[in-house]
């Protein structure tokens, strides 16, 4: 990846993170930690990888995205807003009565949302259905789904994984947000999945392990997934929960808590510092 591209993506990812904080702060609830951990991945997906267009959100041949870890809706909304699917100001109405943006992704009303999710383990099955549809209809779109590393404790994830491999869904790319934390603590302390890469490999996936905050690695992983034929791909992305907000990083307490006014200021300042650092060499 060239420097200019990486620079642009990092700037966008920072804007996406600001949108997360904006949304969760105004909602006075929501899930900032896991949203921040996948901000880079979603930024890459929506601005580089996926064929999607805000002008035609339901285009038949578009690539699909399913946020299986639906509680991280704030980051999906933030990236969709930045991409132009709906006005940025909707983010500050997140979770309000009568607002467009529901607490969890709602495909019926929110432009750009391909599947309603929120109950863990279910999104990956829907993603399999979408990928299978492409095979049945001989279409060449791809399907991406992001799972939490806690989420993979749900048995349905492995039902779906078996299905994906059996049906050779090479148009399906599963991304595991391996931030190591779930509500009750460290994933490895609660009910460890063990070696996540090994598990997906055993289930018949082409597995690519990366640093989920390194755009060069993200780019290479998606390229490799696209070139993989005859089997689905799984990208195991090592990430930091709460990434780029000082007091949230790797802190499970920020799984599902909104910042107060003071914390909001600190978080936004943290992100502004990231932004300024990025602007520095460019100016």
């Amino acid at each position, binding site marked *: 990846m060239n420097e200019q591209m990486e620079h642009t993506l990092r700037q966008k990812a920072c804007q996406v993170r600001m949108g997360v904080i904006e949304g969760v702060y105004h909602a006075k609830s929501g899930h900032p930690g896991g949203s921040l951990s996948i901000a880079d991945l979603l930024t890459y997906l929506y601005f580089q990888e996926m064929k999607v267009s805000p002008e035609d959100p339901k285009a*038949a041949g578009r690539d699909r995205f*399913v946020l299986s870890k639906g509680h991280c809706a704030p980051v999906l909304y933030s990236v969709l807003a930045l991409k132009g699917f709906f006005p940025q100001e909707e983010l500050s109405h997140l979770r309000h009565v009568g607002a467009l943006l529901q607490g969890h992704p*709602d*495909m*019926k009303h929110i432009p750009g949302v*391909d*599947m*309603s999710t*929120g*109950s863990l*383990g*279910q*999104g*990956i*099955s*829907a*993603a*399999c*259905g*979408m*990928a*299978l*549809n*492409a095979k*049945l*209809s001989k279409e060449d779109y791809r399907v991406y789904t992001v799972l939490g590393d806690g989420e993979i404790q749900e*048995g*349905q994830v492995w*039902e*779906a994984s*078996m*299905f994906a491999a*059996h049906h050779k869904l090479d148009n399906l790319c599963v991304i595991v947000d391996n931030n190591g934390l779930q509500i009750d603590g460290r994933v490895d302390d609660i009910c460890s999945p063990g070696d996540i890469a090994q598990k997906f490999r055993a289930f018949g996936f082409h597995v690519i392990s990366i640093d989920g905050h390194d755009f060069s690695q993200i780019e290479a992983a998606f390229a490799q997934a696209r070139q993989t034929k005859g089997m689905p791909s799984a990208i195991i992305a090592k990430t930091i929960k709460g990434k780029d907000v000082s007091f949230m990083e790797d802190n499970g307490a920020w799984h599902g808590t909104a910042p107060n006014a003071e914390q909001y200021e600190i978080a936004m300042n943290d992100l502004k510092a990231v932004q300024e650092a990025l602007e520095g060499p460019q100016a």
Partner: protein
Amino acid sequence: MAEIVKKATRQSYGEALAELGAQNENIVVLDADLAKATKTEIFQKKFPERFIDCGIAEADMMGIAAGLASCGKIPFASSFAMFAAGRAFEQIRNSIGYPHLNVKIGATHAGISVGEDGATHQCCEDIALMRSIPGMVILNPADDVEAKAAVRAAAEHEGPVYLRFGRLPVPVINDEATYKFEIGKGVTLAQGNDITIIATGLMVERALAAAKELKEQHHVSARVINIHTIKPIDREIIVKAAKETGKLITVEEHNVIGGLGDAVCSVVCEECPTQVIKMGVQDTFGCSGPALELLEVFGLGVSHIVRTVLDNL
């Protein structure tokens, strides 16, 4: 006298799917390792490329159906009622019901007439579960003719539909040439003024037999209404019967909690308070045995309906 033709509605389901598959290429059928029992294998043989066996993974199957529907397919996801409505309830609720996706759930082996397999497989709770999901249409056909019509209507309906079928071969009571099926419309099968029997599924034929016996042997004129659509229920036909005949007796092969009886009660208690006697499985689990014997054991024989009517006149 012509011989009574019997057919299990699960058989009708499989046959109707195969017919529909020829007419609409968007129809895909999913099963969870029960294609021989649910009869989706009839479709599978004709359209193997549009048949997806998900393996023994009902929750996953519902999600796959949701994904397919989101891309324009019309999936019929099939399993036993217990594993469709029961095991995969939350997947149906969140992945299909909430986004109002165009998935049809073909649930066979409903009720205690599953027979010998016993309580773990005898689902008498599915109607209650499915009624509680906003926007879900519930069809519970009485015979072969109605079951096929229900499958066709479900395919044409935009949105989630739960179809309930049985394992036991049941008499064909409707005439294929003249029968008209409309979602949400009850059917008056016998006129009567003394009392009304409201039945659904395989109990419809039994209600008709009871009405005949009541007329011939007891000079009681019982109206018989077939409610094939549990949701949205035909309020008009129920209120009319309540006003014209007074007491209502509901008969269903389902728990008396949450099924047809409760649906009828909620209509009349809002619109014209009327006594309703609920016949069905009386909040107990089933047990093993031949289906026809079990229907007697659980108080769902023709004689039970006759007795209930006479006791409540």
